[in-house]
């Protein structure tokens, strides 16, 4: 009797440990394996962008092209006014991220935390603009900017960003609603104004959410395709995303050049994402939300 319990006492941890080990191994396999599946297109693009055209279809495929063919980038760069496209993109994106984040946070605070008669009716307006396909306003806005003589300038891409973006307002409002009201009630009793509550109480608790909408804004504006496509006309006035459209028609099946062009669009985004991710993680740490 005593012997069997002792036996069981000895063997159970071994089985348990083996089980835990297998589970951990499978977890790592899925997490790491999946991450490679997700990164595969990007690796593949990087590889192709540095491969000689004659090596594209070699069997077995070349995994690391040696020596790397940097010339692909030179050919791609000289294809169009690439520097000019990049400059336009940088102007549009940096302006948009700041403008959209600041206004969206303030508007979302108004909807989540202040009280006035028309508030909820107006919020239906926010939801409606989110649901409305951009195409409905695309046509009249284009005609308006056309009348204002702003076609083929960056203004139609900048001005609309000054008024908050429904999607980001919605995200921030939903986030603000999850913050306990007692916090700002306490601040109110201490005589704080709404602006003080927003700055001292709500924003410090919302850094991850704000970082998230800033990243979304960066992504969407950098990748924005349809708006610059309809507003910008002359080749040198395009943004990078639209400029690269010409690559598809010009390079056709010269995939090594096409991939070099894609790299141009993607690398700044990856760099920006790494910078933002730092901010994002710091924000999570600041608010004390544990992972």
């Amino acid at each position, binding site marked *: 009797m005593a012997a069997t319990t002792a036996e069981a006492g000895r063997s159970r941890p071994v089985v348990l440990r083996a089980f835990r080990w297998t589970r951990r191994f499978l977890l790592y396999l899925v997490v790491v394996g999946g991450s490679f599946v997700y990164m595969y*297109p*990007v690796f593949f693009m990087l590889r192709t962008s540095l491969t000689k055209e004659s090596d594209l279809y070699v069997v077995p495929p070349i995994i690391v092209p040696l020596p790397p063919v940097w010339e692909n980038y030179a050919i791609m760069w000289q294809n169009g006014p690439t520097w000019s496209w990049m400059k336009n993109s940088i102007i549009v994106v940096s302006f948009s991220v700041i403008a959209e984040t600041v206004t969206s946070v303030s508007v979302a605070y*108004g909807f989540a935390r202040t009280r006035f008669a028309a508030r909820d009716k107006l919020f239906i*307006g926010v939801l409606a603009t989110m649901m409305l396909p951009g195409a409905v306003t695309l*046509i009249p806005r284009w005609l308006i900017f056309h009348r204002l003589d702003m076609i083929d300038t960056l203004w139609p891409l900048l001005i609309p960003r000054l*008024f*908050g973006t429904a999607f980001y307002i919605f995200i921030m409002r939903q986030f603000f609603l999850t913050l306990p009201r007692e916090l700002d009630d306490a601040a109110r009793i201490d005589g704080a104004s709404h602006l003080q509550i927003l700055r001292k109480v709500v924003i410090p608790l919302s850094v991850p959410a704000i970082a998230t909408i800033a990243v979304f804004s960066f992504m969407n504006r950098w990748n924005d395709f349809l708006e610059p496509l309809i507003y910008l006309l002359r080749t040198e006035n395009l943004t990078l995303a639209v400029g690269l459209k010409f690559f598809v028609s010009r390079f056709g099946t010269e995939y090594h050049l096409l991939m070099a062009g894609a790299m141009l669009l993607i690398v700044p985004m990856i760099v920006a994402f790494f910078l933002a991710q730092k901010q994002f993680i710091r924000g999570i740490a600041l608010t004390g939300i544990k992972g």
Partner: protein
Amino acid sequence: MASSGLSAKTTGLRPASASLSRWRAIRKWIAAQEGWVFIFPWVVGFILLDLGPYIFALIISFLNWDVGRPPTYIGLRNYQAAFTDPLIGKSLWNTAFYTIFHVPGSTIIAFTVAGLLNQKVRGMPIWRTMYYIPSVTSGVGMALIWIWLFAPRGALNGMLGWFGIEGPRWLTSTTWAMPALIIMSFWGVGASMVIFLAGLQGVPQHLYEAAEVDGGGWWAKVRHVTIPMMTPYIFLSLILGVIGSFQVVTQALLMTGGGPDNATLFILLYIWIMGWNAFKMGYAASISWILFAIIFVATVIQFLGARRWVYYEYQEPG
């Protein structure tokens, strides 16, 4: 404020007291309107960039407006034409098909990946970044990459070749072009993944501990704690997924041009073609209102359905 009220009473000046209380009422009213200050930018933008253009778009949709010629009023004829235009039926069907596969598929994938990324695994920042990178690069960059992956002798067909399968000519096949775009869309789940991950990190730990005390295993915890607590995030992801998916255009414009044989003609692509290639602004505006109606109804239905399954609870701080 209390002290000034007191001084008014002690001086016994009735008119001053009356004006003071009126002043106080006005101040109170102004304070109650403070919210307007925060919302003001949006209100201006809403009138100038949304409400105004919506009304304008409605007017345009009743006009025959070929850019370059003066617009003429033609009543409902744009809408009549739209309802009998086979390409609108085709593009609506395509868009719905894409939505039916893209939205549930990418929600499930994003939820699963977020769950995996919420585990304690060494090097997590690296793995998390790797899952997210394709979404960062969505749009034109990704479209260019997938043109190459889907090429007749591209990577995907190369891999299928290892299993002895002869891959289709994805983007130039009427059967496979749409599935190709749906497959590609599953690489862009990063945004919902981040939203889910943020939500998962807000699920109170004590609920899991309670489930453990009750003898619940891994699946019981997912089923009875994680999913109910995550329903607001799932709902948000579904709502935005449907809205976004009805407005897909970039991939089709770059990768297939709506072809082959209109197999990837999405509704927004058709609007763009009508508006900026054919310059039929009136007709394009009327199609955009049809799209608006569809998205609106789909969203309202989802909101009505949400009452049955979405669970809201204020999260505890920290």
